[in-house]
């Protein structure tokens, strides 16, 4: 099938019309969070109930991606009206159809009650998540998908595309926050060919699932963003690097690529234009360091995912020595919106230096955990206490770890900190790939620092001395303190080692891994002191306190 830009726009119109003709749309989340709780059975139950009541022409039941409230899955969203049902069972399905669809009376007892969860969110990257069927390209197209690519291919030069991205102020969502447009410029001006675009979907941080969710919910947003990036920098080939532990994301992306190819949106002479671009999936075996930009390159080339020193940067010498653009998938999913609405529209969202939104995986001791998307510049307090609904009753908020396993533990006094790259870094945390873990007073901060340091010890690639040995020694000292064998000098050595590992390590893993230790030393020093002098864990967590409790008469 050879399609032209007009054909895609026509398909969009027709599909949108067809969808408007349904009185109700029943969206059953079948993303990784809801699947294990029986989402597919719920989907089937809805389809059967619709048939039973003879509503096939009036209702569309579809599988969709994550709505964000995964902890109360399976989740079902009924449009119009945005009715969100939680913990839906197959039995509920019939009840919902009977009451909500047939009699127009939503089943109140089953509705998601935490309105606050959505109130402060701004869902741009996740615009389609939970609303479209990720396995139907028509759904994406009907929602305006691929019109940004068409606009680029038919109305904009590569330079204009880059200028628009620069104007948007978009910065990389993979952690470091490098200006995206500027990176595109670097790759675009390279003479060496072929060039490559790599979408980074490794997401090795534990407890972080925003990128996976995005791929499962809206794969075409990533693909479209990649195609636009490829057009802008002059690449003909792209790779999406996904960890193999994300089978549903892999399957969804694979199907999406197939559909994009069948519609001429991928491959040779896309939509009859001069632009050719195709994407290959590469599965990673699942090492945290494989997400580091030079690590990912080595892995795609079929080598050990070991980082290498930069320069040369991938923009000049990436895959097989060729100019390569590496971008996080969330960054890429922002691109179509920027092209459609303009860079200046995007630049107004968030803060002046940190535009747009950011997806976070909100977990830990919080009432409404899940996947959220918020404008940059929102405060931690708003995220933890308004969106997250605070700490479950009976417990007190103690700290919040921002930025995944190598993020920083920030205390209550910093809750009014604005979430942007600079403020977080100043406080000792990082944006990372967007993990926010809420910690309550039941947790010991030494134990927390040990837990994340231990993760990084396991994940260190072993190439450079500071990260390989320095972190190991930090972990061992923490262990000693937890056993009640700590010495006061240990605190100085921990800070000295932490600063050394941060400053001297080769790649971002080592450079950020000391953050949990450094921030707990900074904000929760008294807990270390209690462990060392009183040989006691204030939270009653550590080895020694368990031992002494047993020993106590």
């Amino acid at each position, binding site marked *: 099938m050879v399609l032209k830009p007009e054909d895609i726009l026509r398909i969009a119109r027709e599909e949108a019309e067809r969808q408007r003709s349904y009185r109700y749309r029943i969206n059953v989340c079948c993303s990784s969070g809801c699947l294990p709780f029986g989402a597919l059975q719920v989907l089937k139950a809805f389809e059967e109930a619709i048939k039973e009541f003879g509503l096939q022409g009036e209702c569309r039941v579809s599988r969709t991606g994550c709505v964000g409230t995964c902890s109360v899955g399976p989740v079902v969203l009924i449009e119009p009206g945005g009715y969100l049902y939680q913990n839906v069972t197959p039995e509920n399905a019939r009840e919902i159809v009977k009451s909500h669809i047939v009699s127009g009376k939503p089943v109140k007892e089953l509705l998601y009650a935490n309105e606050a969860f959505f109130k402060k969110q701004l869902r741009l990257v996740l615009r389609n998540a939970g609303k479209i069927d990720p396995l139907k390209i028509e759904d994406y197209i009907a929602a305006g998908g691929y019109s940004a690519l068409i606009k680029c291919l038919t109305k904009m030069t590569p330079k204009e595309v880059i200028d628009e991205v620069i104007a948007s102020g978009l910065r990389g969502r993979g952690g470091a926050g490098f200006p995206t447009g500027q990176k595109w410029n670097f790759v675009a001006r390279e003479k060496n060919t072929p060039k490559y675009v790599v979408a980074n979907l490794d997401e090795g941080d534990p407890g972080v699932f925003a990128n996976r969710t995005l791929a499962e919910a809206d794969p075409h947003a990533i693909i479209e963003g990649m195609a636009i990036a490829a057009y802008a920098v002059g690449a003909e080939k792209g790779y999406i690097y996904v960890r193999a532990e994300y089978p549903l994301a892999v399957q969804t992306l694979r199907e999406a690529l197939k559909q994009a190819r069948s519609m001429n949106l991928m491959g040779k002479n896309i939509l009859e234009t001069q632009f050719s671009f195709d994407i290959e999936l590469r599965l990673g075996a699942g090492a945290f360091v494989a997400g580091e930009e030079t690590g990912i390159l080595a892995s795609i080339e079929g080598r050990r995912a070991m980082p290498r020193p930069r320069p040369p940067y991938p923009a000049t010498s990436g895959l097989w020595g060729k100019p390569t653009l590496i971008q996080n998938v969330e960054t890429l999913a922002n691109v179509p919106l920027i092209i459609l609405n303009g860079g200046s529209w995007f630049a107004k969202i968030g803060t002046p230096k940190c535009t747009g939104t950011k997806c976070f995986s909100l977990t830990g001791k919080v009432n409404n955990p899940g996947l959220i998307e918020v404008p940059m510049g929102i405060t931690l307090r708003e995220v933890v206490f308004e969106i997250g609904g605070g700490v479950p009753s009976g417990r007190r908020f103690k700290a919040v770890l921002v930025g995944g396993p190598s993020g920083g533990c920030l205390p209550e006094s910093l809750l009014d900190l604005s979430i942007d790259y600079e403020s977080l870094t100043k406080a000792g945390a990082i944006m990372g790939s967007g993990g926010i873990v809420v910690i309550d007073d039941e947790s010991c901060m030494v134990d927390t620092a040990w837990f994340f340091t231990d993760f990084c010890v*396991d994940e260190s690639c072993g190439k450079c001395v500071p990260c390989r040995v320095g972190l190991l020694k930090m972990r061992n000292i923490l262990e000693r303190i937890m056993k009640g064998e700590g010495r006061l000098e240990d605190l100085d050595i921990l800070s000295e080692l932490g600063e050394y590992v941060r400053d001297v390590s080769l790649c971002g893993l080592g450079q950020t891994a000391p953050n949990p230790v450094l921030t707990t030393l900074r904000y929760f020093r008294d807990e270390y002191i209690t462990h060392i002098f009183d040989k006691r864990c204030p939270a009653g967590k550590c080895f020694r306190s368990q031992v002494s409790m047993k020993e106590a008469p």
Partner: protein
Amino acid sequence: MSGAGTVKLKINGVEVTAYEGETILEAAKRAGIRIPTLCYLDGLSNYGSCRLCIVEIKGSPKLFPSCTTPVSNGMEVITDSERLRKYRKMTVELLLSEKPHVCAVCVANGNCELQDLAKEFGVDHLRFDREWTRQKIDLTHDFLVIDNNRCILCTRCVRVCDEIEGVHVLDIKARGKDSQIIVDMDEDWGSSRSCTSCRKCARVCPVGAIYVRDKPISETKDKDIAQFIISRRRR
């Protein structure tokens, strides 16, 4: 020397002219300024793992490995400072405590680059507990031995075997603290069919991890071997 293809920079306040594309380490070396190194070896690709050669560049709070950072015009490099010395000493201490480095019972005693650096930085005791690793010691080759319990993972052996001898017998397995040098697909050295027994690996190993059995190490170590071979091949 100046003009096309060269750049001017300052190292420790002294103006130095260097070739474009050269590393800071190379430029410093030609100017007679020594920067401590361990994983670097003239003639092999640059690896950047030991972090001993870190330097400061004016205008940046970051540290840069001089063995992999290219020179640029107007750059002002500092190769020695209190901070750098403190960090280099830390690296040596960490390496010494990563494995059971007991110099008294090491073949390389007196001919060891790690030992030399420990002396240079005044490491008189270790602030960290030593790890008593039990990694593989391969004694199956006729005369070559690898004792991973002394290896500092600089990969000089891996690189010399791959890039100079051209056979890539050696590599690393596992990761992090469990990383180990292996022969072929982690087989016994004695049964290796790819090893040419050229001894280059033993000649470049900075410590006592790969050595030729029953030979004084002072005779078998030769860290200029890679550069020597390359210069001969060019003739």
